[in-house]
Every structure is written in C-alpha cells, then in structure tokens.
C-alpha cells in the first residue's frame, strides 16, 4: 500500500473514526461524506466504540498478494453497536468456533507487510471475540 494512502486513512484504521449525520443522526463507517439515509452532507466526525457482533464470516486460504503471511485467516462483516457494518479480519480466535451473532471488539493489528520499495508495515483494525471477564 502506498504511504500517502495509508496515512490518509490513519484515523479510520487506528481509531474507527467515522461520521455522524448532523441532520438525521445516522452513524456512518467508513466515512462517505454524504448521508446514505437522508442524502445530506454528513462530515461531522464520530468515533465508534469498536464493539459489535459478527454478521457473517468466512475463512481465506488463498490470500491475495501481500496478505499471505496470515493465511489462513478469518474475515467477517461486523455489525457495530452504533449501526454500521464493517469488513475486517477476525483475530485471537483461540479454540472458540466463530458464529453469527458472536460479540467482538476492535483491536489494532498488522494487516499486511508490503514488500518492495515502500516496505511499510500496514496496521489497522481487526476484531476479536469479547473476552469473558471474571467478575
């Protein structure tokens, strides 16, 4: 991935910064500047909690070029608690089988290691199962 492109999306990749529509309150991620619900300008920043649940999932064995080091890996559509759906890898799965509806939370992880002249380590969000906390 090219450095400027990676840098532009840093707030999304590290902190799930999306938008909230000032007209109808709909939360938006990834940012799209025009509200999908009411069609008006929606550029007000909004930070998502990072909590959600698995809407769907699958496992990738034949990874696209640049992503081979993690293969096989599980990817998912995650429905965030604020409403939007996000596409991401799942991580820290342990022995627990992934299922639809499974609660997950966002973490920052390495997404890919670019070879070639750019050679940057690309970090970004993944989601892991919400730990069962002993109380």
């Amino acid at each position: 991935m090219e450095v400027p492109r990676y840098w532009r999306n840093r707030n999304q990749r590290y902190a799930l910064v999306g938008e909230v529509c000032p007209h109808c309150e709909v939360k938006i991620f990834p940012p799209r500047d025009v509200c999908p619900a009411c069609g008006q300008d929606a550029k007000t920043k909004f930070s998502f909690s990072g909590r959600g649940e698995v809407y769907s999932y699958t496992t990738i064995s034949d990874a696209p070029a640049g992503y081979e080091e993690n293969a096989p890996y599980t990817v998912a559509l995650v429905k965030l608690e604020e409403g939007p759906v996000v596409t991401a890898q799942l991580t820290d799965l342990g022995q627990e089988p992934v299922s639809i509806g499974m609660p997950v939370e966002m973490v920052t992880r390495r997404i890919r290691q670019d070879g070639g002249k750019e050679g940057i380590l690309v970090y970004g969000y993944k989601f892991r199962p919400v730990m069962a906390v002993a109380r």
Partner: protein
Amino acid sequence: MRDVAVIGIGQTPVAEHWDKSLKELAGEAVIAAMRDAGREYADGMFMGNMMSGSANHQQHLGAYIADWVGLRFTEAAKIESACSSGAASFRAAFIAVASGEMDCAIAAAVEKMTDSTSDEITTQLATAADADYEAGMGLSFVALNALIMQRYMHEYGWGKEHFAPFPINAHANAAHNPNARFQEPINLATYEKAGMICPPINLMDASPMGDGAAALVLVPLDSVSSTAKRIRIIGSAGATDSIAIHHRKEPLFLQAAYLSSQKAYKMAGITPSEIDFFELHDAFSIMSALSLEASGFAERGQGPRMAVEGEIFPGGRLPVSTRGGLKARGHPVGATGLYQLVEVVQQLRGEAGKNQLDRARIGMAQNIGGSGSNIITHILQAI
C-alpha cells in the same frame, strides 16, 4: 429512439489460450461477428474489459483493437465496470445505435487472464471491491461472495446441497457447448466432495477463469432485411449499488438487479413470466439465487427452491445458463457479459445445437459487476 437489432455474433472458446495474445483473442471475436453480420465497417466499437492494464500491461483497447481488426480510424473506446464490462459495452453500443448517432456499432469484450499468475489475478479481481475497506483488509473476491452466502444460509435456512443444482445444470449444458471451458457433466457427489475455497463456497460453486473474447454487431432494426434473422433488443438497463457490501442497506438483496430488471421489463412491455430463458450471472451459486430473486422469478430467500425443484433446467419453467453459464462455459471476467448475449442470440436464432430450447422467443441476460454493485440487464426477442 430507434429499434435496434443484433445482426452478428462472434466468440472464441473460453480456455487457457497460451498461444494467443489479448489482441488476437479480441480480433477473432470481432472479425467473426462482422463476418456473421456481413459488414466490413462500423461507425464505432465499444471494448469491454476489466484488467488489461495490469494483466497485460495494455490499456487503450479502443484504438489497440480497432487497428488490429482493420477498423483503423473508427471511433472506439474501452468500457470498464468490473465483471459487467461486457454488458456495459453492449449497452453503450445499443444507446449509440438507438439514439441515431451510429448506424452500426460493435460491442466487443476480451479478457486475457493467463498472462498473470493466479495470486496476481486474485489481487486484480479484488479491485472490483472497495480498495481501502474491503480488499485493503485482506478480502478476496471469493471471500466477499462467501460472506453473502454464509449469512443467506443462516437467514433462510438452506443447506449447502440445495445450491448443487445450479452447477449441475450448468455443467450438463456446457457438455454440448464447444466453446465451454468445462464440457464434463458433474453430479451431486462431485459437488459434495469439492474442496472448500472460502466456506461455504466450494470449488463447484465458483466459476472458472479463462481467456476469451466475444462480440456482437448492432444496427437499426429497420435496416435489417425481413428475410434475415431478426433479433431485436427490447429491454436494456443498468443500475448501481454501493460498491462495498458493508454499505448496502440489504446485503442479501441485489437492489441493482431489481432496478435494472424492472427498467428492462418496463421498456420491453413484459412481465418476468414472459421470459423464456435466462442467462444469469452464476459467478458463484449464491449469485444465481440472488439474481432469480431480484429479477422477479422467486420470492426473497427462495431462489434455491427454483433449483431444487428443477425449474432452472432445460424444459423447466425458466432454463438458466443454457450453454453452461459462467460456471461451466467459463468466466473471462470483462468478456462474460457478451458471452451471455451471444448465447441468448444463438437460442433465439435456433442455433444452440443440442442446447436448443423448445421455446426460445424472448431471452434475458444479466451481468453482475463486483459483488452486486453494477448490474446490467438485457432482454432480446426473435421477430
């Protein structure tokens, strides 16, 4: 707007054409279509293609192919909408002729995939998705379709085996299509033993890539002599949806297929029940089901029922993939939409060989770009 007819078709076999280049493949299809049409000139050519820039290091296919086929000086340009590039080129040619701007337009499309390694192609196919938020998260194109299928099975309760009739029908039909990539029938056991690619999508759910090119020649209907085979384009429409699945309001419903098919039905003045056969975009079995639902042939969540009950087979209520579909004829990505249309014309002309349907008066083709984000529907009629 003028009525528009198809008077020429051409295609190459879908195969690993190690001995043929991008331009040779495209040239074969275009020249075959012009010969079939009995034309030596055209006013314009629209070249559908997805990945020539990366897979073949060649863009600018309008001039490149026009020159190669002897149409130097003819207006030409490349049209790209991922997997629906083929139908997009056909629609451009249709609009050009219907508007009166051109009296003869060629829709041509080519994809030459075997010059690249398979992981390069996997990466290229993923460019049909959102680069930052889908492909950039490590998602492959197959994975995106798997996410849809997994959720679909969860919501509607279908089992894996209920999708098997789609590839079984496609392979049975392709056995009689000399241009098909795979000409061997498969059965339920083949399907159930097939290796997983991205669960629940297995090898028998996924269409094979391949090199290929197809072309059609379009002219005003009133210029076609009454004794010739007159194939009229009675419906033509496209629609888009969010490129990323996560942005779609209903990820399990192909809104762009619904909109483009509804527009095409309206233009043709017909209802879905009048369609005799349907060349649908079976890039993955799940897409067949979603396409049947969005195009008005099945209720939501009930696409697989048409397969399970045999309605999609030759002789059924709505035969699909009558010459093998993407699954068995093959899926040379940007060219696929024109293979579908060539096959519709073959059926309407009565030239489909052993695949010829008893009733083939009105045929529909639907070409899906991306994971459902650019969908183009055409309806053709023999008159």
